[in-house]
């Protein structure tokens, strides 16, 4: 590859968050007028890398070279000015403004009286949309557009800035098949117009259709590229994504399993917007006492939605049956779920797990407050004892039970959420990404804890997108892809290749 064909080069990029290394000495090239595809599991560092390339994170170690010249973007606006645009997975448009107003937001054209020059802006917008085969009038409100069209507006916005590199983060995750076809034609057109594309996606089929080359990231490191796309096979791609050495990893004890505690049959959850499409489609499985069941899937596979559906958060739209200890149970709210012995440790502990400004002891007693009520009043002695019990059992590092939860580290916050549920003496525990964003030691503690809970006879359901984690701690692994179950493996038969193969369809 000749130097002039490399539009953007990253050299030894390292990025750390609070001691956790997200990117470690990553070096890669973005080739001019090509579709450069980045592949890797969730948490491999793709998003972090994109955010550095697009100026969202101005602080990092290493060097960025744009057309051979060193650059350091101070903000997304700065990156945009240098010709690098990013189309986020979640679109950033203002719904009740027109297409034109959105495209020109912050760089409006005014006439000699200082008034907005709608005529001129609409003309330019129309020309930009025409380049993208989009024939919607420029003064249409964005709220009235389909998701695919909104994405085209975002691309048009990038074109207005004369973007040379367009980064697309999972652009097909929210659009219909017909819209995907349009997007691919747009990408082909952009290539012809000498625009370089950096593309992230998990959907293997589409990757082989549009990619010119693959770049693999794993655990924050660059693992290699596939340049010769014609001869590449699905297996080569999977090898690029997985295949790390799994030494020093915790492995779950082999425990005898008890009775079935939870069974779900035909669980489906239609999308709010399009009733014919599903977030969860026809999922059935069972969970036994003492079992740790893993659910693996890539972003958007429907894992979190599955947990939420069983937990009663989508009772109005869901279909399917739930059996606890063999009895069919109607769960219409989280209240019912908790009353039936379930607990859910959510993916985002700050947003959904804890009341951050409350002290640790109040969070611990939150879901089982009746046990600290004496004569109709909360008994602070009982409450402190309860908190102390779990602080010691789970080794929660806090200066006192009265410490505000927001002052704890991520791992210890997660343990407080776990303590909240253990205090309810549940039968079934759902853990959604239980070790996300916490350090290695806390991770290991949580693995041991999960093992001990299973030993005590709980049924544990763990959602994780970390392959080594799910292979280490689970007795059985369900793989989800495109809202369905695409594979079930016992711990013994599971391999990274098999799981990934099932996950990326």
């Amino acid at each position, binding site marked *: 590859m000749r130097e002039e064909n490399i539009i953007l080069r990253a050299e030894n990029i390292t990025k750390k968050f609070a001691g956790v290394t997200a990117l470690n000495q990553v070096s890669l090239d973005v080739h001019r007028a090509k579709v450069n595809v980045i592949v890797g599991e969730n948490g491999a560092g793709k998003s972090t890398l994109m955010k550095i390339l697009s100026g969202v994170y101005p602080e990092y170690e290493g060097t960025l070279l744009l057309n051979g010249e060193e650059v350091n973007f101070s903000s997304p606006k700065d990156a945009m000015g240098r010709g690098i645009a990013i189309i986020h997975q979640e679109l950033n448009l203002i719904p009740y403004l027109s297409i034109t107003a959105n495209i020109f937001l912050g760089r409006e054209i005014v006439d000699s009286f200082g008034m907005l020059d709608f005529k001129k802006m609409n003309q330019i917008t129309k020309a930009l949309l025409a380049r993208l085969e989009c024939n919607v009038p420029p003064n249409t409100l964005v709220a009235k557009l389909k998701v695919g069209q909104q994405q085209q507006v975002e691309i048009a916005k990038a074109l207005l800035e004369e973007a040379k590199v367009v980064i697309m983060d999972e652009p097909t995750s929210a659009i219909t098949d017909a819209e995907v076809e349009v997007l691919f034609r747009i990408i082909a057109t952009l290539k012809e117009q000498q625009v370089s594309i950096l593309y992230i996606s998990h959907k293997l089929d589409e990757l082989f259709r549009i990619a010119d080359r693959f770049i693999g990231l794993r655990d924050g490191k660059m693992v290699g590229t596939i340049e010769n796309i014609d001869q590449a096979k699905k297996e080569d791609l999977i090898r690029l994504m997985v295949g790390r050495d799994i030494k020093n990893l915790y492995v779950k004890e082999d425990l005898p399993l008890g009775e079935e505690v939870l069974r779900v049959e035909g669980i489906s959850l239609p999308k709010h917007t399009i009733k014919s499409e599903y977030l969860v489609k026809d999922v059935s499985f069972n969970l036994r006492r003492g079992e740790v069941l893993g659910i693996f899937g890539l972003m958007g596979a429907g894992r979190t939605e599955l947990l939420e559906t069983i*937990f009663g*958060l989508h009772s109005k739209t869901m279909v399917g049956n739930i059996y606890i200890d063999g009895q069919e149970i109607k769960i219409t709210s*989280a*209240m019912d*779920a*908790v*009353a039936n012995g379930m607990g*859910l440790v*959510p993916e985002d502990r700050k*947003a*959904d*797990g*804890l*009341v*951050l*400004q*409350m002290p640790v002891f*109040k969070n611990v007693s*939150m*879901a089982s*407050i*009746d046990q600290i*009520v004496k004569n*109709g*009043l*909360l008994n602070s002695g009982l409450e402190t004892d309860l908190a102390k019990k779990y602080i010691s059992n789970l080794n929660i590092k806090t200066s006192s039970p009265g410490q505000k939860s927001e002052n704890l580290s991520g791992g210890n916050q997660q343990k407080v959420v776990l303590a*909240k549920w253990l205090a309810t003496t549940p039968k079934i525990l759902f853990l959604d990404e239980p070790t996300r964003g916490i350090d290695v030691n806390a991770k290991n503690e949580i693995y041991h804890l999960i093992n001990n809970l299973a030993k005590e006879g709980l049924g544990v359901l763990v959602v994780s997108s970390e392959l080594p984690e799910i292979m280490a701690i689970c007795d059985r692994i369900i793989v989800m892809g495109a809202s369905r179950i695409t594979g079930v493996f016992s711990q013994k038969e599971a391999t990274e290749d098999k799981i990934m193969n099932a996950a990326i369809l």
Partner: protein
Amino acid sequence: MNIKTTIIKFQSIIALLVMCVVLAFMSDKFLTMENGWNIMRQISVNVCISVGMTLVILTRGIDLSVGSILAFSGAVAAGLLKFGVDIPSLNLYLGFTVFGAILGGFVVGGGLGLFNGWMITQFKVPPFVATLAMLTIARGATMLWTGGFPITGLGQNFAFIGTGWFLGIPMPVWITIIVVAIAVVITKKTKFGRYIYAVGGNESAARLSGLNINKIKIWVYAIAGILAAVGGIILTSRLDSAQPNAGFSYELDSIAAVVIGGTSLSGGRGSIMGTVQGALIIGVLNSGLVLLNVSPFWQQIIKGLVILIAVIMDRVNHPNED
């Protein structure tokens, strides 16, 4: 605890004491028993409704209808007491004792509050809008009920509530002390109180913990309605008259007391005693400005500035809240 956190914790009380000392020097009428009881009597209505407002704001809501509910429940109590209920078609006349009339006022206040809560939880009407609508509805209902004229001449027994003394303390102050005491116990020592903070602190986490969010919110608005009725009855009794325009803009004084008392409008943080201090600050300020013959126009400006200063101090102490 270091000095800075101590000062932050007691900043309302410190501000209150400073105000009292300054006013005592500037006016010899300020630091008298008579003026003290006056201030207490005057703020008692505001404290009652502000206690309800505190609960609402702790859940991250707002209640703009308390002034109108206060007027309507006061008028209903007065009307029941004076005229009873006459239904000629059924050949029925019901007379009311003082106790019955007061109960009638509570039922109306609680009922309207319940309606607020129902709108907010079942139909997802934002609290601001639901209670703004109730502000208009309850005011209109008051006009209908009273025909636009005050209901006066409510008798000695009823007047005792607003003007009487018991053990050397005015009755409105007794009532207020009881309301505050119950509210403090509820917020600090009961499951319901804990849940109020949880809902306001993080509704999503509270829901996932199996809390019945709707039930908690409906109760909170119902209590705010009942406490508005308590205020309405005290006011009606003190004036011996249910005025159709009673309680006009009281919701604003009430929100001011809550905010000055350090309760966060984003929910989950604050206390009943803070609100009491906030109401005291407003009461002392009002009294002092009157005694110093400050023009009523300036009084309003000064009150507004005090609210701003209180909120800015709160921002400085809690910079990370939105």
